[in-house]
Every structure is written in structure tokens, then in C-alpha cells.
């Protein structure tokens, strides 16, 4: 069955380095590392340390004819040979299952890799069924891949990799894009599989605590450098835990502790009145009719309070957020401004002109890039205040302050799309804050603001949100982040089965 009985590959790197095409500095350089057959290692490093690049190189995906081009140096060997794809020796599972499924049906997708390897048809079927059984896939071979949840999709991706019987399994944050239930589904699967397979494993994962039991060795790499620590997990965390945490790595027992002032609380600023929402219109034949995602929802985020929307993916958290932010209108019911917000405009938020809305309600999207509209960081921040008619001198001062506060000053002339993940997130928050003419907006709406952030950006973000809260602004966010819920959130709204259930912090 599946990945068993093929043994593990030996990985050897010596003086290995990689520089992406068009970059001045190396992502990694001088990496010396030997992974013995069957070993399970966790690869750690600050964000931007080239961990994904190393995995791609091991999978034979970097090089002159590949999607990822750049300059390689030193030696990289898998089982004594240069890494090359096509031998079915290496299996790679990346973050987002959405972009890893190729075929429309579950069985066909698992078969895709086997077809590419030139496996005979008679053998494919049994290997596909074996791999699907190994990952505990609950549906039939003909089940549509589009109809799966995130966790189920990622299970299918893993089955597709296992069916190829890899001797080296590379996992690049396999649970990062999943909700807690989906992540648990994948983690429990990995724990079970790793107990059975002999394959060598290299795992990259930011949330170390959740995977530390799966590995027997931890390797830490440094951005632009090589291996800076290598050993048993307990040893590494005892010796380097503090310095790793300072670099932004999530280390068990070294979780960030943001300093926050208590929430002042206040009256509701916006109120969703009996809101019903439906899925957007789908293009294409054989798509189902529109479905109701929220029904008769009543919530009222308050000033000086951090409110979190929680619940499984697809339950309607993001839909509720866009309604609360006045970006789209509900099918029935309305989202009304309350208190000081109603003084600006009494109409439902969705009727507000965009400029007025941006001044009073700031929104931070999950993918920061979606909200960038200019070509430099500086212009991005000047955009809202200059449209609001603020004077040149005032704009300079306000933008300068924002950049200083979010550590963006040295990036002022850079194109927003070229920023790193953490920088993009900081900029997207800064743009949402920049909208107010003389102050930040009254309501800040954020979709998974801490998603994929290292501990440094995480702490800055939480402290910034905390200070906005203490200024009396309403913070509303959709999040799965346990730590964020613990530290910042005052009021929780559970979204599930079309309902929104409010619970205060005491009940949590």
C-alpha cells in the first residue's frame, strides 16, 4: 500500500546555495546538511530564509528549464544523484490545496502523477485505491475535487504524492491554508502515515508546537546563510529557542506576549439587522443554484472592542465581514451605522459612496495584494489622504508616522507587489489606517490578519490593533488564530450553519 516498503532517500547538501533570478543576495548559501534515509527533519528559519526554495530544489523543480529560475551553487544530491523530477522519487506537498489539484475527479487526480511516471494502466488503479485508503479519503474515485473541503483537498494532494511512492517526502507548510478542523485532519493523517512509511521527510512548518512530535531532528537555516543549528528538537529549543523566537520563528514555550491595554468598550458602531446573504452568482453550466450562507444574522460590533468571527472555512465569515464593512449588500436585511458613525451618513453602509466609506471603515483583505492600487509603498499610503483633500504638509507627517510605526520607511519607493509576506501585511494594514483625514477609521475590519505571519509581525500587528482599540475604535476580524483570540479578542461571534452566535470572552 501507498508509501510503504520503498525505503528512504539519503539527502546530501554541501556548500549549497541559491540565488533567485534578479536578486542581489542569496536566499541560502553555504548549506551543509546530510539527512540519513528514514530521518524526519523539521526545517526552521525566519520568513524569507529560503526554506521553500530548498524544498523545491530537492524536488528537482529549480534550474534552467523550470518555473523557478536562478543561480545554484555547491552540491545537492538525493540518493547520490542530482535532484531531478520524473523518477517518482520525491513527493512534494505545498501550502494551498487549491493550486495543487490538477484533475476534476478524485481518482483521476491521484492517477495523474502515476500516468506521468508511465505506470501501466492495470497497476494505476490499485495504487490509486491504496493511496486513497491510506489517507482515509471518505468518497469514491469519481467524486468531484471541487466539492471537497480544504482539509479533504489537502488529503487528496497527499494521496497524489504518496501514490508515486516517494523515497523523500517534502511538506511545505501543509496545514497553513486550512481551518483548524482541516489542519487537524491533515496532522492526524501525517502522524499515522509517518508511523508506517520509511520515507525520509523534510517538513517546513511555522507553527512548530503542532508538528514537533512528528520529527526527530530540527535544522535551522538563516536567511542568506546556511545551517545555524542542527539537533534533537528538545536540544535545539533549549539552546536556541530564545534567539529563534526573536528572529520571528514560532517556538513552543516562547510564544510572543504582546503588551496590551485593557479594552475601553463602548456603544455599537455598526449593526447588522437580520442579515441574510447568499452565495454569489456562479458562471457555467451545471452549477448549483445560489445557496443561503447567512440567515437572519444580528450582530453589533462595539467601539473600543475587538470582535472576532470564528467558525469553519466556508461558513460565511468572510461574507459577513464584507457586509459589515459596507463593501457589498446583503440579500435581505441591512447593515446600519450607529452612534458617531450614523452622524456621518444615516443610510445603510452599502449605500455610502466609496470615499466616505474608506474614511470611516478600513478593511484589510486576506490577500494583501488585492487592495494595492498604486506602484510604490509611499504612493500607496499617500493615496487615501490626498484624495480626502489633506494638505501636503499634513500628508507628509501622517504618512511618515505610519511608515515609521509599521517599519516601512526604508521601503518607501518599492513596488508593493515585490514586498515579502510580512511587509505586504504591514502595508495593507497601513493603507487601511491611512484613509482617515486626520485619524484612522472608526471601524477596522480584517480578514485573517495574522495568517502566515512570523512572531515579529504578529506582535507588532496585535499591539497596533490593541492601541487602536484603546483609542475607542471597533476592531472586527475573522480569524482562526488561537493566540490572537486569547490575547486581543473581547467578543467572539461563532459563524456556522448560517447562524452567528455571540459569546463573550468569559465563556471562551
Amino acid at each position, binding site marked *: 500500500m501507498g508509501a510503504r516498503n520503498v525505503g528512504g532517500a539519503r539527502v546530501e547538501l554541501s556548500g549549497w546555495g541559491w540565488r533567485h533570478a534578479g536578486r542581489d543576495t542569496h536566499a541560502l548559501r553555504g548549506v551543509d546538511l546530510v539527512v540519513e534515509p528514514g530521518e524526519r527533519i523539521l526545517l526552521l528559519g525566519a520568513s524569507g530564509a529560503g526554506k521553500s526554495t530548498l524544498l523545491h530544489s530537492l524536488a528537482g*523543480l529549480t534550474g534552467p528549464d523550470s518555473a523557478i529560475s536562478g543561480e545554484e551553487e555547491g552540491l545537492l544530491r538525493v540518493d547520490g544523484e542530482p535532484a531531478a523530477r520524473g523518477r517518482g522519487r520525491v513527493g512534494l506537498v505545498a501550502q494551498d490545496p487549491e493550486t495543487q489539484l*490538477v484533475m476534476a*475527479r478524485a481518482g483521476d487526480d491521484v492517477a495523474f502523477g502515476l500516468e506521468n511516471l*508511465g505506470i*501501466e494502466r492495470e497497476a494505476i488503479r490499485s495504487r490509486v485505491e491504496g493511496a486513497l485508503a491510506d489517507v482515509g479519503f471518505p468518497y469514491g474515485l469519481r467524486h468531484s475535487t471541487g466539492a471537497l473541503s480544504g482539509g479533504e483537498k489537502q488529503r487528496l494532494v497527499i494521496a497524489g504524492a504518496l501514490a508515486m511512492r516517494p523515497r523523500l517526502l517534502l511538506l511545505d507548510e501543509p496545514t497553513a491554508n486550512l481551518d483548524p478542523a482541516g489542519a487537524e485532519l491533515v496532522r492526524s493523517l501525517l502522524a499515522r502515515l509517518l508511523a508506517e512509511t520509511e520515507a525520509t521527510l523534510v517538513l517546513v512548518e511555522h507553527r512548530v508546537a503542532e508538528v514537533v512530535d512528528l520529527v526527530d531532528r530540527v535544522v535551522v537555516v538563516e536567511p542568506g546563510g546556511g545551517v545555524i543549528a542542527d539537533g534533537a528538537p528538545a536540544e535545539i529549543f533549549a539552546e536556541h529557542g530564545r534567539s529563534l523566537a526573536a528572529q520571528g520563528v514560532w517556538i513552543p514555550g516562547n510564544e510572543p506576549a504582546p503588551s496590551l491595554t485593557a479594552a475601553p468598550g463602548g456603544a455599537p458602531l455598526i449593526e447588522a439587522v437580520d442579515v441574510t446573504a447568499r452565495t454569489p452568482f456562479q458562471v457555467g453550466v451545471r452549477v448549483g443554484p445560489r445557496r443561503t450562507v447567512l440567515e437572519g444574522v444580528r450582530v453589533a460590533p462595539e467601539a473600543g472592542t475587538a470582535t472576532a468571527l470564528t467558525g469553519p472555512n466556508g461558513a460565511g465569515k468572510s461574507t459577513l465581514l464584507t457586509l459589515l464593512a459596507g463593501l457589498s449588500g446583503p440579500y435581505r436585511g441591512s447593515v446600519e451605522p450607529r452612534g458617531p458613525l450614523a452622524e456621518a451618513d444615516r443610510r445603510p453602509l452599502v449605500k455610502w459612496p466609496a470615499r466616505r466609506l*474608506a474614511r470611516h471603515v*478600513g478593511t484589510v483583505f486576506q490577500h494583501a495584494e488585492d487592495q494595492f492600487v498604486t506602484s510604490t509603498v509611499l504612493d500607496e499610503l499617500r493615496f487615501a489622504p490626498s484624495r480626502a483633500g489633506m494638505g501636503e504638509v499634513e500628508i507628509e507627517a501622517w504618512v511618515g508616522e505610519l511608515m515609521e510605526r509599521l517599519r516601512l520607511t526604508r521601503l518607501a519607493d518599492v513596488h508593493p507587489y515585490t514586498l515579502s509576506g510580512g511587509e505586504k501585511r504591514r502595508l495593507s494594514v497601513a493603507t487601511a489606517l491611512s484613509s482617515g483625514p486626520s485619524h484612522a477609521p472608526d471601524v477596522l475590519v480584517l480578514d485573517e490578519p495574522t495568517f502566515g505571519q512570523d512572531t515579529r509581525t504578529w506582535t507588532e500587528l496585535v499591539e497596533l490593533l490593541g492601541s487602536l482599540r484603546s483609542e475607542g475604535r471597533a476592531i472586527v476580524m475573522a480569524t482562526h488564530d488561537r493566540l490572537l483570540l486569547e490575547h486581543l479578542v473581547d467578543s467572539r461571534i461563532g459563524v456556522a450553519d448560517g447562524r452567528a452566535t455571540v459569546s463573550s470572552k468569559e465563556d471562551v
Partner: protein
Amino acid sequence: MSTARSGTRTAETMGGDTLTLDVPAEGGARYWMTGLNPAAKLLAALAIAIGLIPAVDAVTGGLVLFVVLLTVPFSGVDRRTLMLLGGPFLLMGLSSGTVNYLYGEQGLEGAVGAAVRLLAIALPGLLAAITSDPTEMSDGLVQRLKVPERPAMGVLAALRLIPLLADQWRTITLARRARGLEAGYNPFNVVRLFFGRLFALLVRSIRTGTLLATAMDARAFGTGPRTHARISHWRRADTLLLVGTGALLIGAYALSARLGTLVLLFS
């Protein structure tokens, strides 16, 4: 035959989503067309399209259109899809006819001929597309029509991204409003903002496409000759479809010539 159909309304609906086509096990004649090899359907549609190019009169095209319309009840297409596609389809014929009537030189007869011919060419292709499972279509193209693997698989994989792109487009549109950007009633702004959004979507879709290509590469795509997990079967019905299509075209031309209505292009 149709005795297998249950009386409920939902029994007519084909299951699945845009990328999968699930036909009820006991569909009977109602689903006859979905059982044909997509490659055969595509060839038949192509034959009709090419075969009808020379004939601009209403009778030749009309007979073909009539016979193709007779097969629609056996296509398994449900009422919702039929209505969704029927509107634009009729609009296409109507507008083509109107334009030809107003500006053409053949008068009403020529206009009806142009409309009927257009619909007779379009309908078979449309039926071939909506009665075929995309995966089986790509299998048929590769195994029966010897289309190269790479474009066939690439198109199939790219189809999966369309709903994703639609979602991204919606998000980008909302994000512009969140930044205070709204076109209002100024047509210049409408165009400018549209292209801004299009660029943002392009950036997102290139990233999504690269990720998918990397995932396909990681699963050894394009490293050597592929085998096929599924066989694209060619049955007697597929051969009969092609024979029938040929007979239909010959019959249509013969009838039109007999009636003296046949008008050839450039004649």
C-alpha cells in the same frame, strides 16, 4: 428506454459541477448523447460546421438545424442549462438575421438563411461541449484525435482555475471600494478602474497559474511518455454518429437541390 425515468422533476438534472458530468445510472435514452465519445461528437460538430459553410440558403441549414434540434431531448441537458444557454443562442440567430435583413442584399430569404445556417453550425458544437465530461473530452482528444498531451492537460487543469478567478475578481472589486475607489458615473473613470482591476487579477492569476504548474511539475508532468489511467472507448454508436452526420449533410444538400432552393456561397 424512458421507462427508467422517474416522474420527479429533479430526475432530469445531471449531477456534478462545471468540470464533472454525472449521468444517472439508469438514464436511458434521455442521456443517449452523454454516452457518446466526446471526440466523435466534436468530429460530428466540426463536419456540420464545415459542411454548411458553402450553403447559404434556408432549406439546407434548416433541415440540419431541425434534425439536430430533434436530438436535444436525448442530450440529458436539464431545463436550467437549456434556458441559460437558449436565450443567448436565439439572440445570436435573431441578431444575425436582423443585420442581414437590414443591410444584406438577399432580402428576407437571405437573412433567414444566414440566421438558420449560423444556428445550425453553432448548435452541434454547443451540444458536444455541454454533453461531454471535460476529463473525457481531453481523454478523447489525446487518445482518439492524437492531440498532444501538454496542451490538452494544460487546458483541463486551467479550467479548474476559472471559479477561482471569478472569486478573485469579486474580491478585487470589493477591495477597490474599500480603498475608496469607485467609478461613479464618469465613463473615463469606469474604463480606468476596470483596467486597474484587470491588472490586479492578472497578477493574481499568473501567481495561481505558476503554483499549479509547479504542482504539476512536482508530479513529474512532462518528463516522459505518459500512460493513461482511463481508456477513451470508441463504440459502434460513435461510428454511427459520424455516418449519420455525413448522411444528414448529403440529404440536406440533395433535398435543397431537388427543391431548387440551394444557393451556394459566392455563386
